[in-house]
């Protein structure tokens, strides 16, 4: 996969638009997933994906072919998402969760959609969203990449531009904050 990516990158660098198209099509869904986990909002995630590919295209000449193209793309996407999350926090604007009637968050407390349970699920949803928003942008990125994307610590440290110890600590700080915020909801499993 990586050697195929590098071949496409080389072609894209020499002006082959179709090669870049293949890279976009290969990585779009994965980047959307990360962007959504980071921003908590579909529209923001789509904007982050677009901006990330645009930045990637402009910076193709700076890509070091010894590195992993996927990790490099993650780095650009996480930076875009971090910029967005930080600007929202600075402006006191938090992402609104887009959860529908079949919101699986409700399963955090139960699978029964009875009215009293639904009211409770609203509280749970707020708590989960609030807990994720309490994470710093870097903690959120580290947690998303480690837990949801399964990236090893070394790759996360490359994406975040820090050493492995700092990446591990960011993952831990995220878990610690989430556990403290959600503990009352998960302390009595059925």
């Amino acid at each position, binding site marked *: 996969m990586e050697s195929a990516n590098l071949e496409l990158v080389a072609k894209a660098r020499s002006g082959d638009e179709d090669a870049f198209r293949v890279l976009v099509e290969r990585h779009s869904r994965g980047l959307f997933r990360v962007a959504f986990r980071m921003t908590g909002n579909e529209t923001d995630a789509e904007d982050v994906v*677009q901006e990330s590919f*645009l930045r990637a*295209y402009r910076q193709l000449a700076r890509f070091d072919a010894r590195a992993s193209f996927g990790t490099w793309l993650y780095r650009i996407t996480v930076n875009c998402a971090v*910029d967005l999350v930080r600007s929202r926090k600075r402006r006191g604007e938090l992402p609104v969760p887009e959860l529908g009637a079949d919101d699986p968050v409700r399963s955090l407390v139960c699978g029964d959609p009875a009215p009293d349970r639904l009211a409770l699920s609203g509280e749970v949803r707020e708590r989960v969203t609030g807990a994720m928003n309490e994470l710093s942008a870097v903690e959120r990125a580290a947690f998303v990449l480690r837990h949801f994307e399964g990236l090893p610590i070394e790759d996360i440290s490359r994406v975040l531009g820090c050493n492995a110890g700092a990446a591990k600590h960011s993952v*831990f700080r995220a878990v610690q904050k989430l556990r403290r915020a959600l503990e009352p909801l998960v302390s009595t499993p059925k």
Partner: protein
Amino acid sequence: MNHWNEESLALHYFGDAADGPEIERHLAACEECRALYRSIERTVRRLDALPIPERGEAYATAVWERLRPALPAPSGFRFRGQPWRWAAAGLACAAMLVLAFLAGRSYPPNRLPVQITGNTAMRERVLEVAVGDYLERSQRVLSELANARATHPLDITFEQQRAADLLRENRLYRQSALGAGDAVVAGVLDDLERVLLEIAHGPSRITPAELDDLRLRMEADGILFKIRVLGSNVRSRTEPATRQPL
């Protein structure tokens, strides 16, 4: 008995603790640490229930289709001696000049900002619609400059005139946004104003190096991204039912 701290147990959950086998043995014997470990495990596993909107195969194609018009021409691109390509490029340039001339004639040179009157809710809505339209026009001007490629000095008189017009509108919209207490809109308009000022009051003929500088400064500010995000937010508020997810 010495206990393991929360950080070691959290890292062990992800398989990142240096003392994994030792922690595992300890957990088998220590109820207190086991309880803490289980709490970490339950918290993280519960988060798996958070939904991710589905994106099918068509999404990747849609991303490309939205991306392609915004891609700058590759910097290493050259015609290598095929005369028909030069002829085609000449024709394309001539067509663009005609289009630019026609666009210049039809573009309202002194477009006045929307005058906002009426009750508060109505004023806010009118402001949002007007700002959405304004951001779209600003994005077009900035995108044209960001995507321009030049090997010789480029005349940007037309873009400067548009930037000057946009600048006049910007100040009024920014003041209206501040008056309405919308710090987010006011902040982005403030950033945009600085970029427009630079374009409007810079030289009307710029060298390829100056164009690159301008492009890099726009990229560093992330101004196009901010405009796109704000424009998209404004549109979703003013046209709630029209946007379809990709």
